[in-house]
């Protein structure tokens, strides 16, 4: 029998969205078009148009040890070229952001190669080779996983995911990396660590409340889907919790 991943339990819309985003066969809907150059500017790791700095010579130029694993695994483009390892970090507002840290890690592990994600309660960082990072970042920003008001690209000083929103609907950001301009478009005026950019980088208009609630992967008892209403999810999580507790004592399932 061929193993078919189930991705996660639950009968609610939130659970359905989680499964959908994790499934690499599901093509994420593209809703904005942020260019490569703009992504490079927001990331702030290198100047747009400059060559990729390297951490080691390209794999083709260096002597590889005779290793069966290296023969099995095809290196990513970034690894082949010897790029540095760089990062992108997201903060997702608990007010119906399309993604959240745990889901980001799950979906990136299913969808991308050569990554090292770090998951925290309010932020999620993913590290990988620089040119791979730019490619992955573009997918994470241009698709339905991103909302310009409720998701922030924040390398440092991420505080804001669990706070109230600002009056204009933007997630609080101490460094105000992005602003809601008068034309209704959110523009990044600083890169992810808070250094001013030479020009504002537009990342599109914030999505409306209806769209956010239809695409969110966050349970929220005030205005959204309450976690307790998804009984299948609760049952599954309780089972896992119970088993991992009991298995420490006697690894037998009854």
């Amino acid at each position, binding site marked *: 029998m061929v193993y078919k991943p189930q991705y996660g339990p639950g009968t609610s819309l939130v659970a359905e969205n989680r499964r959908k985003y994790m499934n690499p066969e599901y093509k994420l809907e593209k809703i904005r078009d942020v260019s490569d150059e703009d992504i490079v500017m927001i990331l702030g790791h290198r100047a747009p148009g400059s060559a990729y700095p390297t951490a080691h010579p390209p794999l083709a130029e260096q002597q590889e040890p005779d290793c069966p694993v290296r023969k099995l695994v095809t290196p990513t483009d970034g690894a082949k070229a010897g790029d540095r390892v760089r990062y992108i970090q997201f903060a997702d507002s608990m007010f119906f952001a399309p993604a959240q840290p745990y889901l980001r890690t799950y979906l990136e592990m299913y969808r991308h190669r050569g990554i090292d994600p770090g998951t925290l309660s309010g932020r999620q960082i993913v590290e990988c080779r620089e040119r791979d990072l730019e490619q992955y970042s573009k997918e994470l920003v241009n698709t339905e996983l991103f909302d310009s008001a409720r998701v922030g690209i924040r390398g440092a000083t991420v505080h804001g995911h669990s*706070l109230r929103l600002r009056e204009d609907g933007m997630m609080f950001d101490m460094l105000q990396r992005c*602003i809601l301009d008068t034309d209704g478009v959110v523009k990044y005026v600083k890169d992810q660590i808070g250094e001013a950019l030479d020009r504002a980088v537009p990342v599109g208009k914030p999505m409306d409340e209806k769209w956010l609630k239809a695409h969110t992967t966050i349970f929220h008892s005030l205005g959204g889907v309450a976690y307790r209403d998804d009984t299948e999810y609760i049952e599954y999580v309780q089972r896992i919790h119970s088993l991992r507790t009991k298995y420490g004592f006697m690894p037998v399932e009854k």
Partner: protein
Amino acid sequence: MTDAKYSQCRIVPARFLKPETAERLLNGIVRVEGVRRIVVNGPRLPATVPYGPARGKPNPHTDRKVIHVGDQDVELQVQAGMIILEIMDDSCIPELRKVCDEVFTDLSYVLEEGRFMKASPSLTDYAKYGPDADMEIVGLVDPRRNDRPVIIQGLK
């Protein structure tokens, strides 16, 4: 520091306020008879980047600005999220509610009565001010900063 004989209340809007809205609200509050002290609470908006590789660089922020309350200029150093008030007695609460209703036309808010201000000096206060602290300012300003409270003397 707060005095136990005075009542307290707090105004918590559903969203963080823009400086303009905070200014309108505070100007409404200072006109209410019986308000003794006001604390504007919320996450800090630092003048320089506090963490990360850009630490120490300037941090321009459109919400860190000077607003005019009563007859005084007040520098907003936080994103206004909660207004804590010390009031002479509960009789001014209906008036405060009226001010909030006028300002928060498209926002919900909660006006709660309770004890919200510092009732005794903390260890940080002791470290900053020593044993002879001026009890007028304890609890009103951040002890880690050198700012003093703003005294509103008129309503121009």
